[in-house]
């Protein structure tokens, strides 16, 4: 029975798309919240804009809206469904901000708020109010002051001397913040900060860079009972955003007196801010010299750290916070993961957890990889070990950055002075440089003063470095091997140290019977028997250690996860893995998940029950690096019968480990088919055999060959290294000069070169094959032309521009390819339609990133079909006879981290987006309009449009666009060439200067917000940098900016026809 008898329905706000600072941790928390609410008998209404997430699955709520999270839309939902209450604490900053705006608009009449009040949000997020509140309860904060204008900020420097930290109010991931060491930096960061803050307010704060940083994850109930779930220590000291820091749980360098002072302060902060029920996160800075403690900030909601704390301790923070928000108290609830432990039991660990962020600086080569107060990482990994070193080495392996552990990384500097100043700059690989510096004999004290990384950690790393030297000198011995494994050395690392193959190393390890044992994450340090299914592997020094796996004799299916979020691989694959768990659990198998991403639902050891799997199921989670070593050990520990290993749900990660493994019982599509799709030559032969077209192409191993191939197939062409994800290093090459300027030939062994099909429409198709039949799950037409990475391009379903004939041809080709490749399960094919001809670009026999989008649009659990097929069932027996079709249009649009990296917002063949949103409407313009809203862009209904077009685009399409915009009463501005082109076709436009042509120029106009829409297409490197300032200003001023004609066409179409009134529709109504 619900505790709150006055509430029947609850509206849950989730976060939007995956962006830097807001990743799938809110998928995890939202999912737990929905589950808890449903179990308690509430009607759950959910709104989110991210189709890739699990929380937006229609099975998790009664009414599921995939709609933009702008206030008009949420208000429309409230008007439509009249919820009794709203839960805004599960969707990160986006949800909190939306809630605050609703409150300001007075749109919440009669809707109760659960878990938080607007006053407490105001107090926690408004920098000045927060600081005053802290002083009131006797806690110190760094000296600081608030400014709401540039002039005010200038004045502040009189009282707070440089260097200072500038933090805008109400932003996420430290967006817009930075450290200023000089006046010029200060002015720049303040300007950006004021623009970034939704209330134009920045806090200017005394710099306490170098202090130690800690976090406390706390929960509180309505009777004022508080507990600490977890303490977290940032290995990187103050000055690096906590999301970008390597963090350790629990805190390792505090005495009990200090820890308790921090614990008391956390509770005091919760009480003063007024987090009435639920979870919060409090951040502290500690002066390492005298222990002086400062409060940095607190989040009055479930956060990234909550997800980490949940996974680090086995305490389901979001679930408990939801129950507390409903009125339960801590003494009334049990920890759902550990049945016999009350929720009030403060978790204690007998292991060490390390989180390492995953960065993507390689995608933005123009940006230095320096870490600061604004977050840059796109994902993270966590590892559990019996000691700090085992844990951190496992975490490095988990990153999938080809590291074998805490590998040493040489500094660029050569002098001691240079090395120390290099170590002083926080970068993603700083700790690896520290290891190198220790190896080269740099004094630990000097390193400490350069980095301010606590001496305890430095000494541990020193231990590691010394031990590695011992391994090199002494060679393979049983004792060395045992100790090395207990310090977290991976098989691949040891193989490299001892210059043998990984297989040989493994053989030696087996001969010496050195195996990992399995431990359960039980929240209580082994004090009680808990029976949780949450496991990790560890190596003990004691050869007779007890393995806690207790495998059962029951058919098992091992599902390999997708590792850390990164560009090219994100929550969509977690969606697939979690749905696979649900299906296989329902089919009666024991499911075993292997993954290392703490933000995800797949690493919730309660995953099957979240999916509503009833009855007898058993599920185990191995929180481990996703690699061959883990898989082999899990298989050894679990023993027979293993029905199969699922490698087609976790994106490219599971496929990457396959080359190392021959004897794995893969479930579904066999390895030979996977190899076929990766082997260009064989795949080309297959297509020829099937008489299916493919763009002309070739392979080159050096520039000379490259020139030859280019001459054969002609320009433009697309080049890319083989075996990469997310179109890493993919480029469009327009001429020989571009080709010669490309770095790829120096960086990679072999380069694939394909003819670039200009003005082609790209099409994504997902289908399920059972070797007899092929089920077409969906065909999505890309909005941007071929050549822009499919993960970045917007797409629409059903197709808008393709004829029935072409669609049929696409289906037929897909069926023939699927059967010929002997796919059993998912197959994704990318096509291009060019001048009426159909080409196959690539085929991947695995679940693609569009599966969740398709599943939500069609309202079917498509992945369960694929999973059943993998088990050997036939499509004809599982696909419902009646295929209902809805009358809606779905648009998927990507969101990009350009702002975080101050990068050029131009799209190309290398994927750059971090996440996606979905817009659903009765027609394409509406769906597109909503999708744009979802990524934070409101398309203008009228105003001023600026055109600057590349030569190839000065054609009919562009003229048509300009005319239609003119009909919509847009004023047209254009650069000289484009202006001339328009004039010669009798379209009125006003000529404006490019930046290099003197002032006033276009950027001046944009600065003053006198431009409402930018259509800017460019080609080649030089013109890209010429027009960069235009796009940069668009980004800063949030002016909609489109860099391809095809997307501009969609934009204009949308402006013409999208209706302003918000029709909101649930997924349940859709189908």
């Amino acid at each position, binding site marked *: 029975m619900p505790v709150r008898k006055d509430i029947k329905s609850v509206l849950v706000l989730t976060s939007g798309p995956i962006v830097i600072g807001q990743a799938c941790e809110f998928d995890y928390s939202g999912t737990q919240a929905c589950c808890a609410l449903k179990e308690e008998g509430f009607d759950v209404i959910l709104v989110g804009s991210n189709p890739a997430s699990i929380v937006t699955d229609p099975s998790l709520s009664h009414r599921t809206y995939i709609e933009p999270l702008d206030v008009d839309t949420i208000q429309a939902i409230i008007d439509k469904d009249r919820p009794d209450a709203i839960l805004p604490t599960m969707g990160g900053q986006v949800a909190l901000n939306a809630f605050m705006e609703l409150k300001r608009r007075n749109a919440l009449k009669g809707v109760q708020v659960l878990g938080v009040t607007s006053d407490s949000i105001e107090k926690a997020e408004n920098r000045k109010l927060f600081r005053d509140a802290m002083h009131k309860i006797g806690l110190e904060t760094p000296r600081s002051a608030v400014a709401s204008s540039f002039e005010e900020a200038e004045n502040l420097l009189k009282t707070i001397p440089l260097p200072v930290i500038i933090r805008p109010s109400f932003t996420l991931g430290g967006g817009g913040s930075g450290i200023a060491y000089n006046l010029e930096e200060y002015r720049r960061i303040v300007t950006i900060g004021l623009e970034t803050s939704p209330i134009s307010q920045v806090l200017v704060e005394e710099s306490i860079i170098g202090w130690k940083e800690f976090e406390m994850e706390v929960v509180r109930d309505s009777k004022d009972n508080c507990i600490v779930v977890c303490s977290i220590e940032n290995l990187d000291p103050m000055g690096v955003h906590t999301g970008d820091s390597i963090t350790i749980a629990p805190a*390792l360098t*505090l005495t*009990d007196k200090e820890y308790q002072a921090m614990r008391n302060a956390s509770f005091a902060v919760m009480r003063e801010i007024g987090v009435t029920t639920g979870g919060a996160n409090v951040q502290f800075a500690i002066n390492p010299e005298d222990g002086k403690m400062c409060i940095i900030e607190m989040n009055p909601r479930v956060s990234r750290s909550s997800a980490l704390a949940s996974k680090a301790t086995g305490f389901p923070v979001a679930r408990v916070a939801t129950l507390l928000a409903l009125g339960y108290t801590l*003494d009334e609830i049990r920890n759902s993961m550990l049945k016999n432990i009350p929720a009030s039991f403060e978790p*204690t660990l007998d292991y*060490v957890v390390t989180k390492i962020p995953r960065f993507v600086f390689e995608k933005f080569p123009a940006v230095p990889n320096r870490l600061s107060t604004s977050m840059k990482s796109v994902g993270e990994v966590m590892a559990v070990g019996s*000691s700090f070193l085992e844990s951190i080495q496992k975490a490095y392996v988990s990153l999938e950055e080809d590291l074998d552990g805490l590998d040493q990384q040489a500094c660029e500097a050569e002098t001691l002075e240079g090395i120390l100043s290099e170590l002083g700059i926080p970068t993603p690989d700083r700790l690896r440089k520290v290891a190198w510096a220790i190896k080269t004999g740099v004094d630990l004290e000097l390193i400490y003063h350069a980095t301010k990384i606590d001496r305890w950690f430095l000494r541990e790393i020193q231990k590691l470095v010394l031990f590695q030297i011992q391994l090199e000198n002494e060679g393979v011995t049983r*004792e060395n091997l045992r100790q090395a494994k207990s310090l977290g050395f991976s098989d691949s690392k040891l193989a490299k140290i001892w210059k043998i193959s990984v297989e040989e190393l493994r053989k030696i390890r087996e001969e010496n019977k050195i195996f990992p044992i399995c431990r359960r994450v039980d929240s209580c340090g082994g004090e009680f028997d808990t029976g949780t299914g949450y496991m990790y592997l560890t190596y003990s020094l004691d050869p007779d*250690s*007890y393995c806690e796996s207790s495998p059962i004799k029951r058919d098992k299916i091992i599902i390999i996860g997708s590792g850390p979020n990164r560009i090219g691989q994100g929550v969509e694959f977690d969606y697939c893995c979690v749905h696979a768990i649900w299906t296989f659990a329902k089919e009666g198998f024991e499911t075993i998940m292997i993954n290392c991403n703490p933000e995800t639902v797949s690493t919730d050891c309660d995953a099957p029950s979240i999916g509503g799997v009833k009855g007898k199921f058993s599920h185990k989670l191995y929180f481990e690096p996703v690699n061959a070593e883990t898989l082999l050990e899990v298989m050894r520990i679990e023993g027979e019968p293993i029905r199969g290993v699922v490698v087609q749900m976790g994106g490219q990660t599971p496929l990457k480990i396959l080359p190392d493994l021959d004897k794995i019982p893969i479930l579904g599509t066999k390895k030979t088919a996977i190899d076929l799709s990766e082997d260009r030559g064989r795949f080309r032969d297959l297509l020829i055999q099937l008489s299916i077209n493919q763009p002309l192409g070739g392979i080159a191993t050096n520039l000379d060959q490259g020139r030859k191939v280019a001459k054969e197939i002609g320009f433009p062409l697309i080049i890319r290294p083989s075996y990469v994800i997310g179109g890493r290093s993919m480029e469009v090459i327009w001429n020989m000069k571009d080709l010669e300027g490309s770095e790829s030939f120096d960086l990679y062994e072999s380069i694939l070169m394909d003819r670039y099909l200009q003005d082609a429409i790209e099409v994504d198709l997902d289908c399920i094959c059972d070797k007899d039949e092929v089920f077409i799950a969906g065909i999505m037409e890309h909005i941007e032309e071929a050549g822009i990475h499919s993960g970045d391009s917007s797409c629409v379903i059903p197709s808008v521009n393709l004829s029935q004939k072409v669609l049929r041809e696409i289906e037929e080709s897909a069926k023939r390819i699927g059967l010929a490749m002997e796919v059993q399960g998912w197959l994704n094919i990318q096509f291009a339609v060019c001048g009426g001809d159909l080409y196959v670009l690539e085929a991947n026999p695995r679940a693609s990133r569009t599966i969740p989008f398709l599943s939500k649009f069609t309202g079917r659990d498509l992945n369960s079909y694929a999973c059943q097929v993998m088990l050997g069932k036939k499509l004809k027996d599982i696909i419902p006879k009646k295929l209902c079709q809805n009358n809606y249009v779905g648009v998927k649009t990507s969101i990009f981290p350009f702002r975080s990296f101050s990068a050029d917002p131009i799209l190309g063949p290398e994927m750059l987006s971090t996440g996606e949103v979905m817009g659903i409407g009765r027609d394409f313009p509406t769906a597109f309009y909503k999708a744009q809203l979802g990524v934070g862009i409101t398309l203008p209904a009228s105003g001023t449009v600026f055109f600057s077009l590349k030569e190839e685009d000065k054609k009919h399409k562009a003229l048509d666009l300009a005319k239609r915009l003119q009909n919509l009463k847009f004023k047209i501005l254009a650069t000289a060439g484009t202006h001339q082109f328009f004039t010669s076709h009798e379209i009125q436009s006003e000529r404006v200067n490019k930046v290099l042509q003197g002032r006033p120029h276009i950027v001046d106009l944009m600065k003053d917000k006198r431009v409402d829409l930018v259509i800017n297409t460019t080609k080649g490197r030089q013109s890209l940098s010429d027009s960069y300032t235009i796009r940069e200003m668009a980004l800063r001023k949030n002016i909609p900016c489109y860099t391809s004609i095809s997307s501009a066409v969609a934009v204009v179409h949308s402006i013409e026809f999208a209706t302003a009134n918000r029709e909101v529709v649930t997924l349940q109504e859709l189908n």
Partner: protein
Amino acid sequence: MSKYNSALALEDGKVFFGWGFGCEKTSLGELCFSTSQTGYQEAITDPSYQGQIIVFAFPHIGNVGVNLKDMESNSASISGMVLRCEPTAPSSWRSEDSLQNFMEEHQVPGIWGLDTRQLIRHLRKSGPKNAVLVYGKDFTYEEQDLVDIATSALSYDEIDFVKKVTCKKPYTYSQGNQKEHHVVVMDFGVKRNILRLLDQQGMKVTVVPADTELSEIMKWKPAGIVISNGPGNPNLTDPKIMDTIRAMIEATDLPILGICLGFQLLAIALGSKITKMKQGHRGINQPCYHIRDKCVAIGSHNHGFSLCKEHLNQEIQPFSVSLFDDCIEGFSARKGRIMAVQYHPEASPGPQENANIFREFASTVLCRLEKT
């Protein structure tokens, strides 16, 4: 890696080998464990751990060294220490010395390199065990010899440890706070933080040996009495001491506060029974439900005996129960004049939210003074 130079042998025949640290010697004790992540120094100087060898669940011990302020008594109380990882050098601005040096100085041996989780699991399943910890440079013991030593030793439950840890003569504890009234603390192995917190309540604190007779105690003209925490089996307490406590309850109207062992002694004196628990409480993360205040408090627990529910009598009014196993963690008697808690309200180590019992005790003392 160097050869083993240390071993831990249990009375049930289990022997574990590892590497020694601290003092080179052979030491006997009851093997018990602690799951605390912080506060190892407070634990090893807590007299309640007298005669015990502690297995730490948390792998990194020694990380913050030791300092004078965190001493809970004048010396190390434990008989030995069992760790998973080699104790590290300290890194803390509060640290004055390393754990290894401290152990050596206080003659306590330690062993590392053991699978502590497995040991805890074993203790959890089969109950506390007598054990012997051996550490020596020329380590040559035979397994069976070690087991024999462990087996032949007196069981922990049969040893009256209080005699060893109680002070030899009375002393006054003061941190210079203004004193209003006088409490006498019967020392069964009192933790220093209890005295500190009483002092903070404005009480003049006199600590007396556990076997001090009531007439002697009354000579101090106390306004209240505290029966302290301490090690061992409460049922072994000298009958004379039990008589003193009974007389204190029956023949005086003094407010009495019992902590941990003090809780157990008061319960026995009030006609109830204390029995060995199948599984003790050993951590600083234990939730209790305070019935009166209707709230949850997380606290420091270290007890292997508990108040037997079957022998509850009307004298005893529970006000706090464990949310984990429902065992009684606090009671009052005689209309609130007697208060007793099984947990450690003085924390140190552990959360400090149970400390209000000292304020309550102080106000009971004050109340009585005002009435008379």
